[in-house]
């Protein structure tokens, strides 16, 4: 039987065991290698990548789209489910929110990495043109970052109070952090009322902003004439994919935290069952958008799109294309449609597949289009006609993914990954019934 005391004991942030330490070290190694690669890139220029005049965008941009896509999970789990008065998702809200915040942070970082002159970043603010979709993207990303940060912070306030009371369990430095961030929270009824209303307002506001952020990102491609990008479907297509990869990431995170912190009582098999169903539904929606995106143009097979479409279906990119679709959509659906498949371990595997397949799907959005220009590729060295990322690009891309996971890991070390106060509230409400 769960008591308040037990809940607090279980959910307080704990120190890393040996597994946690190894995990952090591995992530740090990836981050450092990525940093070294970036320093090389800064000194020699973007020539260290494999990007050239035709494939002028590469895995930095596909990584960027991937990060923005994952960050939408914050709005889905936290906002949408909260607004629809779903109660079972409460343990997952903070996981979703921290994934969102760290993903958006690294989206901004990877976009600066992709710039040819990063030291001129401030030009965006001093000389920005409102007509440019990049400026729209900067505005929405910044807005979404602050909204997500607030949506992470406000529900934390109640937990600070609890943690400050249990000073013995947490270290001295952590206590200073907690008191700095939320010592003013005294659980007074007025505070609770204001806080709840603020969270409600944020949940409503974040939904259109989340839609905007990924629609504007899709417009970075849809506002051009390129085959494969010149599509009216792009906004909805991207958002559907974003929700899918976000919930897949939550499945992965759920499983890892449950195992690492022994949170079986809080992240139950029922949660996996429900998240699994959500992922199936989102995967079907995404499949629907993919069919729309590819079937209609393939029916027409316009000359400008022919090379691109055939390249994806049967040509140079076919292996990656069918791999991505299988791992992101088909196989997870097959796993999760079955009740046995929605148990924690199979669901975790399905979630991993969703994330990996989605990453490759983002690569397929960027590169094949650029290598099918409207005028023939001409008067360029041979290396310009292909694109396979160089080791520096891989290092930086993996480094950014490792960095994102590092932020999540450190957050779980410092702050409770499952909302303590809300769990207590739910338990008490449950007991009343």
């Amino acid at each position: 039987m769960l008591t308040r005391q037990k809940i607090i004991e279980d959910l307080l942030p704990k120190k890393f065991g040996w597994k946690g330490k190894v995990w952090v070290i591995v992530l740090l190694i990836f981050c450092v290698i990525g940093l070294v690669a970036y320093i090389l890139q800064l000194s020699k220029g973007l020539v260290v990548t494999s990007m050239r005049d035709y494939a002028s965008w590469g895995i930095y941009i596909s990584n960027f789209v991937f990060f923005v896509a994952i960050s939408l999970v914050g709005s889905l789990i936290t906002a949408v489910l909260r607004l629809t008065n779903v109660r079972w998702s409460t343990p997952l809200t903070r996981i979703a929110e921290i994934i969102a915040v760290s993903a958006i942070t690294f989206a901004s970082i990877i976009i600066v990495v992709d710039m040819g002159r990063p030291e001129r970043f401030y030009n965006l603010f001093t000389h920005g043109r409102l007509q440019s979709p990049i400026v729209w993207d900067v505005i929405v990303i910044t807005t979404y970052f602050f909204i997500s940060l607030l949506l992470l912070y406000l529900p934390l306030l109640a937990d600070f109070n609890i943690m400050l009371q249990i000073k013995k369990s947490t270290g001295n430095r952590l206590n200073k952090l907690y008191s700095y961030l939320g010592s003013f929270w005294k659980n007074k009824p007025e505070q609770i009322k204001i806080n709840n209303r603020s969270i409600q307002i944020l949940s409503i506001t974040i939904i259109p902003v989340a839609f905007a952020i990924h629609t504007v990102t899709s417009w970075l491609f849809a506002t051009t004439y390129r085959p494969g990008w010149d599509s009216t479907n792009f906004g909805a297509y991207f958002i559907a994919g974003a929700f899918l990869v976000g919930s897949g990431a939550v499945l992965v995170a759920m499983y890892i935290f449950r195992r690492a912190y022994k949170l079986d009582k809080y992240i139950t098999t029922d949660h996996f069952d429900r998240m699994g169903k959500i992922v199936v539904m989102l995967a079907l929606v995404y499949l629907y958008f993919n069919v729309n995106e590819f079937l209609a143009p393939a029916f027409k097979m316009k000359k400008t799109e022919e090379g691109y479409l055939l390249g994806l279906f049967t040509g140079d990119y076919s292996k990656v294309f069918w791999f991505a679709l299988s791992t992101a959509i088909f196989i997870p659906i097959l796993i999760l449609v079955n009740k046995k498949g929605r148990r924690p371990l199979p669901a975790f595997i399905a979630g991993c597949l969703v994330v990996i397949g989605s990453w490759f799907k983002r690569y397929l959005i960027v590169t094949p289009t650029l290598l099918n220009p409207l005028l023939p590729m001409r008067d360029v060295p041979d290396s310009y006609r292909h694109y396979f990322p160089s080791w520096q690009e891989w290092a930086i891309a993996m480094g950014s993914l490792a960095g994102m996971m590092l932020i999540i890991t450190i957050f779980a070390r410092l702050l409770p990954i499952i909302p303590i106060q809300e769990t207590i509230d739910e338990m008490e409400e449950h007991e009343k019934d």
Partner: protein
Amino acid sequence: MKWKNMRKIKYIALTIGLILFLSEVSLSQVVKNKLILGLGYYNNNNRLQYLKANTKAKLNGKFQQVAGIHLSFYITVEDPANLLGRAVTNEKGVANLFIPPSAKSVWNKSPKQTFLVVSEATKEYDGVHSNFDLTKSRIQIDTLPDRKITATFSELRDSAWIPVKGVDMKVTVKRLGGDLNVSETPTYTTDSLGVVNADFKLDKLPGDSIGNLVIIAEVDDNDIYGNLTTERSVPWGESSKYVSTFNQRSLFARRGWSPLWLEWIAYSIIAAVWGVLFYLFLQIRKLKRLGAGYVAGKSE
């Protein structure tokens, strides 16, 4: 016997060696490329005059321009006192020199002048000379009703202007980068009165803002007279007014000139969302103030 043969052989060997050495030396001298230097005289609108020298050399079977050759220009004779100026050929192998005031007395003495140009020897090329014998001349343009142009070509003979027959002239309208022929005839030739009659056949040609055009009569690359152009402004064009989209609001205009609908939509959305955020920041402040009312440490 042996000694005599040895000496003969020595002499023969030496001679052969000398011949080989000399031929090698002369061969290496022959290898130096030939620089072709040309000189032309230009008279713009009877006012501005200059000399233009161009260089060419056969490299890899093709004639190519030679840059970086130092040239010295002279008038009448190749004497330091008659030096007009120095110039270096540019990338197109061309060097220009405007005739300086120092040539004033020599220039005014005679209607016939000689210009000379000398190139400095370099590693690849020997020094070469070239000259141009000029007879002073001029073109006068006049217009007749019904859009007819007459251009008279005369040369200077003992302070008198004498019309010249048989000189090829082009009559064009001044345009950017190249001049447009006024009629189908590309080249006219002066008649016995030194006159060329051209019809202005260009209908509705855009001129400046009030419809003025500039007619040019030119003599190109004449062996005696050089290159002359004379201009005259005529009101035979259409007035041209070009309104560019530069100062219109559009999606491709510069910063600050975006379409109004975009600015309204964007700023109102930003104001609305950040208004909400600002309100929430205020709410956090309120939470802090509410919390400060209690003594720290006590819990509820």
